[in-house]
């Protein structure tokens, strides 16, 4: 069984190698190869899952060392995999959703002449993401971490002929770099503190290492998580990342890669448990981001950007839960999985709508699509009900638990966090209802595109609708299934640990509160967008709306706080370089040149001049010799 773990990574990696190096002769069947290999990876994952279920609760983890990577003196880095319940959850999510999105992409990318390359990148992403969650040490995790960053860059910029896509890809890569630096510093700190970076020894010794060091490691890990998971203050790349093809947004920027930060924090739970200050920072980041993303999501008219704001906000929930410590780890991962289902489903639905509407993304130019695209409408609708936490659907189970856990933190902190989470739930209900109403309800607001083609909305082909249906089923039932007898809690508890906390409110009170804020959010959205017709151009809006349309000024902030000082600095350095460094170099050259120009005049070509200098030289030498002898 252990050998299968390596195969899990190798299969999509083989796909990437085949598709990216295979050349044009694979153009016709590249998408099938990619999809089959992704499905094969899922099948291996399923076999390993069945095998794992067959073993007792405490010896479920498998370990497989492939080879010694860097054995230098006391420094050891292995390529070794660890498959425990936490990794298994991710493996199934990544390969499962990944396979569905491969199938969807067959239809979605049908008319793209670079489809083979697209599937190659998707397989590369799967391999890197699996490496990330299967690694048994932080260094190998870092390889996967960079790998998904690369795949994300390549896929955001897949339509690189559009300058906006190329810029967005660069932005995502650069912002992610900031986080990556955090991870590399964390790994270095781990090595100096523990002498190793394998999970087991680092995590079991985290409690004895001294709080200062552990806090530093925790904060650096948080920085890494912020970069990868688009959390404040490194959130600015996610909205622009929507320039990529929609399946990419669904797989990488909603279901899997952006949740890597949550994985990192949950995996490093022991470190955060030993560092309360770092944990407080995690919680603060989560709470701020869940509101930040939700507010941005309310104002965006671009359907994908509204969903991106929502993703940011939902990951904020997960980070918040992960920061709560053992009270929240399990629920963070549970929300991550259910979110993987419904957010991927919502993105695929958005892609289906765009496919039908000539790639129009402005929701103000949709309207009334439910009659034209019934399957998309139903699957998107179920995803919508799941994300707002409609009773019984996936989001209800997982988000409710997080809100409960936030209150269970205790004290004033608990009330603030719980309040923020509740407020987030209300805003979630508002913006998702808004997306739903603008897209599928109301009257038609379609306009012809630049070439004068009136859109003819139609249902998407079955290669696209089937993944949407499967994800919708997951959005409906996953949460309930996980909560049946606390199945998910019992599954993950041996890895992450769990404690109940001490909630000032009963579970029923939290659920009731959540229902009330949900209704308020839905009612507000209905009053604004359902009851009266929606203008085709956005009204000016309040100050907050305008700020939210500009992503709450995140880019302006970065521009003023980082870009401008950076530009001044480089300009200053260029000035110093030109005037000072170049001045010295050029000055030396010019003076040597001038001097040699003068000296050159001595060489006039007349034999007698040379003769005179020879005589003069000889006379000087003789005089010197005589003088020396006299002395």
């Amino acid at each position, binding site marked *: 069984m252990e050998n299968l773990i390596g195969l899990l990574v190798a299969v999509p990696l083989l796909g990437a190698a085949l598709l990216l190096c295979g050349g044009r002769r694979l153009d016709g069947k590249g998408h099938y190869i990619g999809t089959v290999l992704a499905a094969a990876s899922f099948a291996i994952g399923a076999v390993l899952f069945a095998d794992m279920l067959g073993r007792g609760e405490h010896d479920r983890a498998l370990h497989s060392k492939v080879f010694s990577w860097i054995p230098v003196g006391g420094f050891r880095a292995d390529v070794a995999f660890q498959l425990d319940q936490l990794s298994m959850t991710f493996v199934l999510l990544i390969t499962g959703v990944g396979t569905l999105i491969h199938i969807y992409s067959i239809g979605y990318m049908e008319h793209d002449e670079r489809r083979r390359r697209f599937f190659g990148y998707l397989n590369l992403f799967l391999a890197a993401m699996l490496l990330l969650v299967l690694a048994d040490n932080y260094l190998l995790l870092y390889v996967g971490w960079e790998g998904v960053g690369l795949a994300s860059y390549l896929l955001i910029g897949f339509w690189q002929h559009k300058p906006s896509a190329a810029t967005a890809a660069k932005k995502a890569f650069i912002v992610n770099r900031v986080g990556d630096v955090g991870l590399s510093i964390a790994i270095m700190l781990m090595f100096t503190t523990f002498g190793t970076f394998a999970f087991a020894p680092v995590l079991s010794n985290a409690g004895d290492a001294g709080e200062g060091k552990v806090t530093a490691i925790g904060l650096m890990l948080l920085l890494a998580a912020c970069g990868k998971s688009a959390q404040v203050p490194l959130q600015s790349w996610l909205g622009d990342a929507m320039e990529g093809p929609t399946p990419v947004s669904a797989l990488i920027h909603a279901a899997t890669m952006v949740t890597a930060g949550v994985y990192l924090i949950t995996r490093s739970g022991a470190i955060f448990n030993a560092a309360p200050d770092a944990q407080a920072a995690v919680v603060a980041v989560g709470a701020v981001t869940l509101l930040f993303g939700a507010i941005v999501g309310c104002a965006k008219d671009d359907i994908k950007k509204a969903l991106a704001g929502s993703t940011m906000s939902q990951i904020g929930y997960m980070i918040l839960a992960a920061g709560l410590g053992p009270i929240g780890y399990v629920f963070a991962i549970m929300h991550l999985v259910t979110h993987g289902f419904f957010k991927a489903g919502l993105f695929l639905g958005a892609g289906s709508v765009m496919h039908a509407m000539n790639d129009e993304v402005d929701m103000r130019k949709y309207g009334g699509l439910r009659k034209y695209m019934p399957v998309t409408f139903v699957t998107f609708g179920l995803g919508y009900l799941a994300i707002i936490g409609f009773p019984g659907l996936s989001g209800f189970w997982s988000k409710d638990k997080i809100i409960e856990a936030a209150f269970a933190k205790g004290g004033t902190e608990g009330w603030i966090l719980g309040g923020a989470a509740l407020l987030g739930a209300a805003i979630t209900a508002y913006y998702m209802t808004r997306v739903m109403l603008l897209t599928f309800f109301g009257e038609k607001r379609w306009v012809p595109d630049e070439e004068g083609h009136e859109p003819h909305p139609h249902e998407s082909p079955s290669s696209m609708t089937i993944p949407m249906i499967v994800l919708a089923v997951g959005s409906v039932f996953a949460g309930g299934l996980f909560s049946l007898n606390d199945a998910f809690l019992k599954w993950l508890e041996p890895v992450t640990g769990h404690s109940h906390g001490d909630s000032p409110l009963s579970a029923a009170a939290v659920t009731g509160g959540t229902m009330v804020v949900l209704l308020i959010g839905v009612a507000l959205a209905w009053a604004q967008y359902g009851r009266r017709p929606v203008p085709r151009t956005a009204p000016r809006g309040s100050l907050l709306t305008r700020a939210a349309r500009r992503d709450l000024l995140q880019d302006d902030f970065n521009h003023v706080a980082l870009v401008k000082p950076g530009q001044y600095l480089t300009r200053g350095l260029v000035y110093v370089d030109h005037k000072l460094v170049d001045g010295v170099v050029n000055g030396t050259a010019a003076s040597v040149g001038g001097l040699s120009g003068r000296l*050159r005049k001595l*060489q*006039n*070509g*007349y*034999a*007698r001049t040379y*003769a*005179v200098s020879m005589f003069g030289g000889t006379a000087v030498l003789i005089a010197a010799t005589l003088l020396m002898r006299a002395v």
Partner: protein
Amino acid sequence: MNPVNYLYLAALLFTIGAAGVVIRRNAIVLFMCVELMLNACNLAFVTFSRLHGNLDGQIIAFFTMVVAAAEVVVGLAIIVTIFRSRHSASVDDASLMKL
């Protein structure tokens, strides 16, 4: 006669030759001046030989004559070649090697 007087004569001849090399332009005259300087040296060598009572100076004088003869052969050949191409034996005309 005091042998030292020969040394004065040698110095005088050498100076005349050196002045000729510096002042004159005709390559042939220049050559003759060089020969004059060489022979002034020979005279000095022979005189020293006589003064010190050994034969070293005289032997060196013979060497100088042989080298001077060889030099004359090469030098005259060069002068003749230059004269053929430029129709002039003035050393100032052959100053094109300068930048």
